[in-house]
């Protein structure tokens, strides 16, 4: 058809197909169940040795045993105590240090080089040193967890403070709001989302360090239990322990989501 010639009316073709996210909730469940079923079947058919990878049903049976004979309760109690004290200590000190760096240029100049130097050290590598300093008891393990939590918390806190729009602080100053009240009513709530999202990272870090620390010279705790079952070739009990750790991680994540929703209703 020559350019500029009259053309008959026709519909405009739809050209924006694809590249859109859709939800497929059934697919996730189906794949998950299929994987479990395939695993169970492979063990029962003798394709996988029960010793190396016990069937899901055996893992559940081992878990029930753990629950019934009180092993789970004792080890979980020991682990939770270390996790909570270590995480809480690292978080409190980390937030305090983050506020100091975020608010005072002197603290910033003094603190940031130290933090940049120590942050990259894998904290678990320091456990033997802490055992020398603090003994083989709880303190050294809790310290490792606290140290691992401290750095991401501190960095997220001063990062959140740095990102507060200058304007809202100037606004508060323009109404003569006293400095401490500005801290409480403006800086803290504005930094809260950043601090809370760090909790997600530090919870994972704390769990990882806890399990690792319990595998070095601890008599109790889920990590120590998993290690001991491995040495006894009790893989069903080992995996039951791993399952417990995973569920713990999941519960913490869910709890944090709930906390964020409660505290940040305004978003």
């Amino acid at each position: 058809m020559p350019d500029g010639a009259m053309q008959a009316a026709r519909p405009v073709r739809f050209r924006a197909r694809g590249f859109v996210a859709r939800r497929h909730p059934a697919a996730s469940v189906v794949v998950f169940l299929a994987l479990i079923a395939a695993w169970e079947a492979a063990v029962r058919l003798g394709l996988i040795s029960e010793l190396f990878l016990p069937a899901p049903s055996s893992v559940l049976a081992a878990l029930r045993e753990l629950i019934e004979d009180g092993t789970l309760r004792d080890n979980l109690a020991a682990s939770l105590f270390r996790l909570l004290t270590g995480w809480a200590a690292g978080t409190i000190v980390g937030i305090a240090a983050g506020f100091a760096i975020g608010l005072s240029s002197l603290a910033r100049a003094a603190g940031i080089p130290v933090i940049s130097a120590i942050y990259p050290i894998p904290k678990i590598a320091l456990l033997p040193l802490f055992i020398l300093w603090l003994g083989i008891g709880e303190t050294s393990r809790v310290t490792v967890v606290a140290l691992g939590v401290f750095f991401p918390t501190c960095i997220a806190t001063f990062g959140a403070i740095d990102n507060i729009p200058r304007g809202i602080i100037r606004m508060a100053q323009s109404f003569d709001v006293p400095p401490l009240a500005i801290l409480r009513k403006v800086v803290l709530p504005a930094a809260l989302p950043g601090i809370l999202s760090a909790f997600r990272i530090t919870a994972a870090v704390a769990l990882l360090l806890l399990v690792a620390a319990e595998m070095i010279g601890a008599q109790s705790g889920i990590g120590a239990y998993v290690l001991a079952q491995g040495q006894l070739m009790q893989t069903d009990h080992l995996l039951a322990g791993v399952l417990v750790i995973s569920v713990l991680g999941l519960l913490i994540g869910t709890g944090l989501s709930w906390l964020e929703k409660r505290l940040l209703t305004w978003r």
Partner: protein
Amino acid sequence: MELVGRGIGQVFGDVTALAEIDVHVADGEVLGVIGPSGCGKSTLLAILGGLLKPSRGTVEVSGRKPPDCLAEIAYVFQDFNLLPWRTAEGNVRLPLEHHSMPEAERRERVAEALALIGLTEFAAAFPRQLSGGMRQRVGIARALAVRPAVLLLDEPLSALDAQTRELLMEDFQRIWLRDRTTAIYVTHNLTEALQLADRIAVFTRRPGRVREIVAVDVNRADRATPAGRARLAELHDHLWGAIRQEALVADRELEHA
């Protein structure tokens, strides 16, 4: 109250933002300030309100405060500066919270400020639930709640669409007719300045100086009448003539920056 700035200059590093400014706002007067982007209007307002120490010059206030005045000078900001975790009511309360007064009075002041600007039914809404115009109304109510002697407005309508801007100009008009609050109204919009100001200071491009001061010789109440509109249109042409060249050069400066 009256506000006087003398010989104000501001230097940021090697940028001279303000050259040598004298401003005088009489009691109950609204001074419009217009000038191209980057000529130092916000800087001047920050200096006049005590939010920035000037490199040179002095600022003084004098005269009688209105009754129940809690803060001599209050700001209305271009980007509102609301606290997103507080409701409209909570935002308006903020400047009252550190003043000791019976809780009933505080609540009454907040309610009155919200009512004055038509926000009563949005008192419990969070900023993210409000339109731009409603957000700025919260910013205005917050400033009015302290019953300031001087109101400093930094391009308060620049972030809003044209229709919302008209509506808020009507609100300002009403509030000024009622309270006669001394005010400085910074804008780059000639129509806003002509509708709202008693006098208009035209700034040069950076470094900002006062190029000219134009009196808007039309009564506030007459500005919507045909005769009033005709006079404002004349003033508009005059102001545009004064500012066009400045804006043209400033625009090119920014391109090459």
